[in-house]
């Protein structure tokens, strides 16, 4: 610092203008600038796409030359399951990141409305997830085109991408709210990858209580568009409750 210059403050006419919150879109845009700088987030996303594409390559290799579009889409569904596997972990990394790396404090010193900030963080992660699903789908469609030479089969992959998007959005949301509630990655990983798959097995006196908290079942039904009341209880248990806990902790301190 060799020279000193002063910043004459620009004085808004009215301090009350500062009671208006930072525009939501600006908060989302800031997060979309932040995520690529988070190595864990970028690396995990790339790994998810690579796993999905590798799976697609493997399944395409097993298809016969005259495979129909229906068969290709079925194989795409299998690859999509592999692709979606990591998204709870990516969500957990995203949800815990601002607290583990402390940048939540940095952002909140500019935009102090915490619920709004949390919503913007979630929205940005959902946009990130949709973009990654788009990349995965396009890569798979390109592979199909190269392998089968059928533009119809490649188009079928793109038009059947909806369930992939929904499944990854669901998984990332669960991971994010668990990560933000726990402010760490380990607990969400155990919950999403160890506890969640075993809970549906719970049955007491012949009553299948596990169905009420069946995360995988809810994800499947959501992707298929056949949501039942069991799925709503699962959504409450895996999304609403952790989100409420995350917001409560956020209200107490960043």
């Amino acid at each position, binding site marked *: 610092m060799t020279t000193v210059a002063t910043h004459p403050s620009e004085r808004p006419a009215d301090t009350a203008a500062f009671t208006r919150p930072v525009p939501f879109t600006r908060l989302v845009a800031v997060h979309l600038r932040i995520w690529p700088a988070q190595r864990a987030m970028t690396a995990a996303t790339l790994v998810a796409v690579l796993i999905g594409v590798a799976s697609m390559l493997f399944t395409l290799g097993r298809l016969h030359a005259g495979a129909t579009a229906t068969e290709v889409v079925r194989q795409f569904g299998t690859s999509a399951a592999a692709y979606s596997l990591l998204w709870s972990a990516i969500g957990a990394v995203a949800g815990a990141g601002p607290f583990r790396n402390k940048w939540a404090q940095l952002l909140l010193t500019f*935009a102090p409305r915490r619920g709004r900030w949390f919503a913007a963080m979630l929205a940005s992660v959902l946009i990130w997830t949709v973009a990654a699903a788009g990349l995965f789908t396009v890569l798979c469609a390109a592979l199909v085109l190269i392998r089968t030479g059928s533009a119809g089969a490649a188009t079928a992959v793109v038009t059947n991408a909806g369930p992939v998007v929904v499944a990854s959005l669901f998984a990332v949301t669960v991971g994010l709210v668990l990560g933000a509630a726990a402010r760490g990655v380990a607990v969400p990983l155990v919950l999403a990858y160890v506890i969640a798959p075993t809970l549906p097995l719970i049955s007491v006196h012949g009553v299948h209580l596990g169905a009420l908290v069946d995360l995988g079942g809810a994800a499947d039904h959501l992707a298929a568009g056949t949501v039942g009341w069991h799925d709503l209880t699962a959504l409450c248990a895996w999304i609403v409750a952790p989100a409420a806990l995350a917001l409560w902790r956020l209200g107490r301190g960043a």
Partner: protein
Amino acid sequence: MLTFDAVSKRYGAVQALDRVEFAVPAGSVVGLVGHNGAGKTTLMKTVTGLVRPDSGDVRVDGIRVDRLGRLGGLVGVSFDASVLPATWTATATVRVAAELSGRPAEDVPATLDLVGLGEVGRRRVGALSMGMRQRLALAVALIGKPRLLVLDEPTNALDPSVVQDLRGWIRQHAEAGNSVLVSSHNLPEVEQISDRIVVMQHGRVMQDATTADLLAAHTVLVRVDRPDVLADLLSQRGRRVEPEANQVLRVFGTNTDEVGQVAAGCGLVVRELYAERQRLADVYESITTEGAAR
């Protein structure tokens, strides 16, 4: 500009803030001093809402902090440099702050230059030295051109030349009509830059006074042509006077006005006249010792 009105905050058994009351007027620098754990950082965090008081009000320009929706341009905060994300570059960090403050990206290089980081903008925060990170935290606080600056230990780990420049900058910022609340363990520095000084201990304000009043020793040194005459006159007025070398008198319990008037009243030639100032370190020591004894 900034007012704390009976602000209290408790963490379990610890009373972090206990009915804290003082103000930071526009155009002034207020120094906040106190031991570790006195409540300085907690108090500063209430200004941005990072800490919510259990009771009392914190207001910026008359508006309660919890009603503020955006702070960029109004309040700039430089906290612990550890809140800066290690994987971001210096430029990216300040750009995020600029975006949230509604400042154009073109302001980023100028602000980095201002804190002497113009050359290292592309370096990751984790690769910067402690002093550089501290300066980056300062750049984040300054980018919004805030009317109120809140600086927590801003000169920690800074080079002496940078400290000197920063002091000058803080003074200029205040003289431009802005306000600065600065905490520091470096008492000579606080003494030098502050218009008011607030001493905190155990979450309470022990002293809140202008720097001049706080450090006034009520002792005057005067050099006159006939010190014996002046000493007699002042002694008759009940002042304690001690002669020093070179026709100098040390007069206790008075001020320069009184001594000057007495000397002028009997035609003495005053060659030097000034009030002795205490050091902040001594005043602070006495306030906190007294506070601890209560």
